[in-house]
């Protein structure tokens, strides 16, 4: 029984609950959300500090109490090397979102703070849960708050986007639930740790369950062709919504692969992996091409997520430690970088009143040099430049595909690797073309001077920039945590 994970869930939840008190009606202290998410972040950092890095494959900070015996559901929380980075990332991004909001207050601040705190609870819970149903519950918790974030604080087409988001992802969740229940009915337990140790599920059932779970997670990830909710949601969501959506929500899907689908259903994974890989690389190419022809900045970043998540899924599909490592690294890196991208894109949209590239014109580096530079930085990081965090995930994923697990077809995965490699070029192409269009050139003369980056924005962005640099220059910081854990979930595979 460890109090930290429980506190990490309780703090934002209670923080949200307190907001419901009538005395907060109409006026909520400005720093309230900041304080609550700050405490959560502090807890996350404390957890990371106390974490035993010598044994990252072991579940630490475990809490295991029965909740609903009738459903065999236990309140089982814990952290290992796979989930720790994501937990910290979640706490960090939420905190930064509140920093951003402190500098740019939105309408209905109380409701927004409430929504975001509930969202945080769900996100952190997803990464902490060690019980299949508990995972599912937290997985679902995020849907309604995110719906409201989009539907209330979003852009002009927000309603349709929000509805599409919630319906699409709920469909995925429902399929996911079916898969989890198949696992449960066959293995008789919901405990992920126990299930990952071996569960004796028949191969055909494993395939079926993997398909269901995989499809459910793939919607969230999102994997081509289940991605179409994402661009709409991103385009319409407010900045904080986009950041959390890209930074954390998508990770919940891919985290599920590392935590549930692959360790619990290894044979199913081995059978389905070629398909997963194929969809992943199609997603890479498709996402990149779609980006090339986009007109809207935020929409382009959204499609870029499809491509990046393609790399993550490709990493998983290789079923090698290096591939899964790549996927986990890619997850964190994408969270940082795309979070930053959306922050910057939001700032651009605030200043120009549009995110349409044609209407943005060019010359952002001249008009808003700092924002333009940060946009350049984020794009360069996103296109996978070595020395920045985005590179390692992509590189290792391709490396994983270079020699996939023994039971997978090597020529097939070599093909995937080559396609993925072309994808990296296309990724660079669309980012650079976008930069060329938006940041280069002469600024239109009719625009007056605009406020360049503000202190709040810098405060919200700098941690992301620094972490991107840190993980890019020193990937060991992350790989050392994940590697033992990954090797533990892929027994007998790889060198």
């Amino acid at each position, binding site marked *: 029984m460890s109090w930290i994970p429980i506190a990490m869930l309780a703090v934002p939840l209670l923080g949200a609950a307190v907001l419901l008190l009538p005395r907060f009606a109409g006026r909520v202290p400005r720093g309230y959300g900041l304080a609550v998410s700050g405490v959560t972040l502090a807890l996350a950092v404390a957890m990371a500090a106390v974490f035993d890095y010598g044994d990252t494959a072991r579940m630490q900070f475990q809490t295991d109490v029965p909740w609903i015996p009738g459903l065999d559901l236990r309140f089982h929380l814990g952290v290992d090397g796979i989930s720790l980075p994501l937990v910290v990332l979640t706490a960090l991004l939420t905190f930064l979102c509140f920093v951003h909001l402190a500098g740019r207050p939105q309408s209905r601040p109380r409701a927004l703070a409430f929504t975001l705190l509930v969202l945080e609870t769900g996100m952190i819970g997803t990464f902490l849960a060690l019980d299949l149903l508990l995972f599912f519950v937290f997985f679902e918790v995020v849907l309604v708050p995110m719906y409201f974030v989009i539907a209330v604080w979003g852009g002009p087409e927000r309603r349709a986007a929000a509805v599409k988001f919630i319906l699409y992802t709920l469909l995925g969740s429902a399929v996911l639930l079916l898969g989890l229940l198949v696992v449960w009915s066959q293995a008789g337990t919901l405990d992920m740790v126990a299930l990952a140790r071996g569960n004796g599920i028949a191969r055909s059932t494993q395939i079926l369950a993997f398909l269901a779970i995989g499809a459910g997670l793939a919607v969230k990830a999102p994997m*081509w*062709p289940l991605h179409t909710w994402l661009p709409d949601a991103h385009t319409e969501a407010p900045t904080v919504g986009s950041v959390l959506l890209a930074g954390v929500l998508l990770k919940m899907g891919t985290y599920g692969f590392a935590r549930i689908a692959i360790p619990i259903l290894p044979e199913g994974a081995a059978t389905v992996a070629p398909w997963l890989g194929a969809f992943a690389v199609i997603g890479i190419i498709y996402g990149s091409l779609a980006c090339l022809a986009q007109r809207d900045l935020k929409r382009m970043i959204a499609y870029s997520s499809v491509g990046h998540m393609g790399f993550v899924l490709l990493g998983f599909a290789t079923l090698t430690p290096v591939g899964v490592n790549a996927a986990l690294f890619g997850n964190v890196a994408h969270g940082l970088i795309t979070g930053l991208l959306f922050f910057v894109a939001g700032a651009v949209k605030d200043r120009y009143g549009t995110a349409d590239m044609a209407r943005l014109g060019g010359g952002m580096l001249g008009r808003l040099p700092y924002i333009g530079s940060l946009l350049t930085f984020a794009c360069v990081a996103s296109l996978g430049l070595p020395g920045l965090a985005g590179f390692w995930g992509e590189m290792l994923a391709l490396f994983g595909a270079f020699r996939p697990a023994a039971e997978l077809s090597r020529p097939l995965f070599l093909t995937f690797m080559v396609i993925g490699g072309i994808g990296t070029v296309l990724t660079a192409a669309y980012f650079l073309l976008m930069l060329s269009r938006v940041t280069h050139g002469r600024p239109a003369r009719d625009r007056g001077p605009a406020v360049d980056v503000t202190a709040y924005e810098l405060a919200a962005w700098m941690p992301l920039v620094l972490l991107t640099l840190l993980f890019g220059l020193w990937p060991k910081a992350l790989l*050392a945590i994940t590697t033992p854990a990954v090797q533990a979930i892929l027994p007998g595979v*790889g060198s």
Partner: protein
Amino acid sequence: MIVLAVLAILLPFVGAAAGLLGSRVPRSRTPARTARRRAAWFAVLPVAISAVAAVWLAARQAITGDHGAADTVAGTLAEIETGSVPISVGLQVGELSALIGVLVTVVALAVQVYSVGYMRDDPRYPSYSAFISLFTSAMLLVVYAGDLIVLYVGWEIMGLCSYLLIGHWWEDRANSRAAVKAFLVTRLGDVGFLFGIFTLGLSAGSFRIDDVLAADIPTSTLIAATMLLLAGVAGKSAQVPLHTWLPDAMAGPTPISALIHAATMVAAGIFVVARLYPVFLAAQPTLDVLGVIAAVGMLGAALSALAQDDLKRVLAYSTISQLAFMAAALAAGSDHAAIFHLVTHGAFKALLFLCAGVVIHYVGSNLMSHMGGLRTSLPVTFWAMTIGFAALAGLPPASGFFSKDAVIAAIEHSRSPAQLFLYGCALVTVGVTGAYSARAWLRTFFGSRRPVPPSDADDHGHGRAQHEERGRPAVPRSMLWPVVLLAVPALLLGFAGVREFDAESAAISVVIALLGAGVVYSLWRGSPAQDPARMLGPFRVPCERAFYLDTVYDRLVARPVLRLARGVVRTDDRVVDGAVRGSGRAAVGLSGLLRLAQNGNAQLYVTGVLAGVLLIAVGVVVLA
């Protein structure tokens, strides 16, 4: 000792960070002049120290190398577990690395100093100099890397710096396009390079270069790996067919052309082949391919250079051609010759570019048709550039004479199946090189002055001319010093290789080069105002357009990709998302259908009930 290498890499990096972040702090109260001065210090000082460190390392190499033992300095900071082959973050300074390290730092230092003057009026000088520092750091990382992945990291960061610096004057869309093109073309090659690294690393079980070189890898794997590496080499070193970015890259500030696109970054490809030479030697087919590429590249680029009007483009094509020489030497089996030429080329090409920069700065235009007769007004530059052109054409006693001779000799003695082709191409190229060198030299410094049309000055002067008084600006001292400084090695460096001098091939090549130069001279004598390139006759336009390769790529790659992209967007909207929306519409449609029955007529309801019961009953009886 390894600390020195680390220092050499880290200092420019820190300098870059400081230059980017620190030169304008505090933001509001720092005048541009202060920022510039600070940035200049941040730029020059670390590179200077790095240069000292690099020289020290090289000197130590030279000393211990004589003793024969322990001639490499190596150190590993950490092993990074990836779950498969680990990455060892480590450096290793061997003979080759030490030498190239000196080249890089010295050229970089020269360029940094030169830029202080050249970019005097550029408001974005701090970022510019920071990117040069970053580039220096990255290049040193490539040079000193002890691990292939570490090398790749530096390799790509160089690409980024190249992109940022080419696009330095981003107000001009053409620069922006050139920058994007440079990055993408090299990136395309780098993907192959990365896959080559994978192949080597996985076969050897380690990414450490030493382990890779020592590993016993099957030949077929080696051929595959080296072929893949070759893609990256071709991209970075601007070899056929990935060379098209380099001439466009001349859009960047001239010092950048000198540093990155002439002396150092483009040499990285050659360096890597030399660094991994044992691997390449074991894969003869790759060397043959390299030979053919080099042969085609050197001649084609030389011909293109002959037809260009833009001085920097002449130099750019000559760079491609000279890099092809190095590649040819490698293909011929002599890495010594290649590296020798690399070093001398680094020196004289940097010199040429810096001189060209002075000329351009002075004239306010890149085009040779706007120059002429500068011999008197720019005497120092004239002499320095004369040395440079002599070295380029391979005329004694300039450094290029010796190194090119070494390359030709190596090709002559090669036993490669492509040897004859390569040798022939090399000799023709020597002639053409002499011709275009002479043409550029004559057109720039001799004859009568040709005025610059004002509009052209704006177009080609990249805005600098706007800051100047109309008329000829004075050349700052900080620009001349590096020129003079570089002229020395450009002239004398060749004597380092005098031991391997091959008189016979030297004689042949000098004769051919002089022949080429002579033809140009005679044409020029005939009518000094006209361009000697007219001797190409109908081939002039294809040569000037670099044999339409850009157009071909545009038609075959760029446009189809963009068309495909639009197709994908359409598909995404109509098919993928269309299915989603369609399912939504289907549900709504079904809703409408079911609502038809809910018309309020109770009798219909009862009918429905009875019909339903009947249906179910019949169904059960029939199916059960």
